[in-house]
């Protein structure tokens, strides 16, 4: 795990991620400016850092209702504003970017943050950026596989010789600057199905598994499939970290948490995906065996520990800010994470 800068003796890592969505608050109908949203994201990371949270990441979505398309730039401001927290993308759509430029950005980010940068590469769940950036959606899979492969080669070798279909060949190319310790932790972002998890396993790269709702046991299948695939290619799964990421909201009671969060998720999803989140499914989110971490501090501690027992994962990443959630609610969540949830999670998951 050292290669990925994970120290399991300190317990499971706890992180926060934002998609960088820029949506109106459904309760007031008002939307803050993009300027304010970007500043709030930086402030959010700062609070997370001060609360002792391990990790903070920002995503890119190239469409209406998002504000962090230039996520590496936002991350660089976060690097400057924070001290200890690890910072990453969630995710970088490598398919529609040049891996050389992406690597230059993230290696620089690693230097600015003094060794705190990581990169999570994904395939995009919305495809508008293919048109915007001039790529053909029919190359969806191949673009990702080829560019992700090149990104990893750049990470592992200082001099790269490479040729492929979607980019000019590299001959004895040196990609500079190098990160602080010579390489970056690079993860593969995986959505719902085991098929995508298996691809991460075959490549022997850490897996960032995003989830909406449903029983935790469903996601265990993807994690098992990932580890089986990695073992089948001779990788040691004890050296491959797994992170899970999804909705999180803590309040005095689970009922209060459901009440506080639901309108933001439902209305936000209507605007970004065209369909809301069924109330019935959301209500099941409070169940101890549901993957959504929504509830009182004690309920959330128990859920995360249950998930840790099931998954044996190294990092959990919470998404709290979706759908125009006001900043004071984010502050309150971070406060409860820092004072109640994090100490308990660390205590019970630290490995000797």
């Amino acid at each position: 795990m050292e290669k990925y800068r994970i120290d399991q003796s300190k317990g499971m890592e706890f992180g926060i991620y934002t998609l960088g969505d820029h949506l109106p608050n459904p309760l007031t109908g008002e939307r803050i400016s993009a300027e304010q949203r970007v500043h709030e994201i930086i402030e959010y990371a700062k609070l997370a850092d001060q609360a002792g949270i391990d990790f903070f990441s920002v995503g890119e979505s190239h469409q209406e209702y998002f504000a962090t398309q230039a996520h590496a730039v936002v991350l660089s401001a976060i690097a400057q504003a924070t001290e200890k927290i690890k910072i990453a993308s969630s995710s970088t759509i490598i398919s529609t970017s040049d891996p050389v430029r992406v690597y230059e950005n993230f290696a620089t980010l690693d230097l600015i943050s003094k060794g705190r940068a990581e990169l999570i590469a994904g395939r995009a769940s919305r495809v508008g950026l293919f048109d915007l950036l001039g790529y053909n959606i029919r190359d969806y899979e191949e673009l990702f596989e080829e560019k992700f492969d090149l990104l990893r080669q750049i990470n592992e070798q200082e001099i790269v010789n490479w040729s492929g279909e979607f980019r000019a060949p590299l001959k004895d190319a040196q990609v500079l600057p190098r990160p602080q310790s010579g390489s970056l932790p690079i993860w593969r972002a995986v959505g719902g199905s085991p098929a995508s998890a298996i691809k991460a396993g075959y490549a022997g790269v850490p897996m960032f598994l995003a989830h909406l709702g449903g029983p935790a046991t469903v996601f265990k299948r993807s994690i098992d499939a990932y580890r089986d695939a990695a073992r089948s290619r001779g990788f040691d799964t004890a050296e491959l970290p797994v992170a899970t990421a999804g909705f999180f909201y803590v309040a005095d009671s689970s009922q209060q948490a459901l009440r506080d969060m639901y309108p933001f998720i439902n209305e936000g999803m209507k605007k970004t995906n065209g369909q809301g989140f069924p109330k019935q499914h959301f209500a099941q989110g409070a169940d101890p065996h549901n993957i959504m971490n929504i509830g009182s501090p004690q309920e959330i501690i128990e859920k995360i520990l249950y998930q840790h027992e099931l998954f044996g994962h190294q990092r959990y990443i919470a998404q709290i800010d979706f759908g125009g959630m006001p900043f004071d609610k984010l502050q309150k969540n971070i406060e409860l994470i820092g004072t109640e949830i994090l100490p308990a999670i660390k205590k019970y998951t630290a490995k000797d």
Partner: protein
Amino acid sequence: MKIVGLSGSKVGSKTRTAMDYTVKALKEKYPDIEVTLIDLAEYDVQFSDGRNFREYEGDTKYVAETLMDADAIIIGTPVFQASIPATLKNVFDLLPVNAFRDKVVSMLVTAGSPKHYLMVEQQLKPVLAYMKAQMVQTFVFIEEEDFYRKQIVNDDVIFRIERLAEDTVVLTDTFTKIREAKEAEYDF
């Protein structure tokens, strides 16, 4: 309540004729309901390429968004090669997997032969069930001989169309009320 009538073929006139009767029945009986008829013969809809339905343009976007915005959909379809026409299947392919969740869908079928009666059970209903539709189980099956020069000449068919319109509205009302009561119980 918003009801969309979807006439699913670019070929012939029988399905469109039957859909016109259906829309008329709806409007006469329920003047407050917003009824929109989409006849696929009048739109240039592209083949599904996997993107989110809202990312299409022009007619494709209009058709997909209008259907997604409906509370109930009445599908009218002919039988082609023992199944639904590709134009109609393509519309389903444009939409998300759970597109018909919390929607009522009812069906009207025109066919050249009574031998096609089970097409709906075997081809159309499984697709609608997969997409989470609440279906009006009784569909209206109309044969060639029931039409004469763009008129329906069989009173039984006209009565059945009226009942289809009524059942669609009643079921939509019922499911909406049940859902609202259930959602109020969650208290969040």
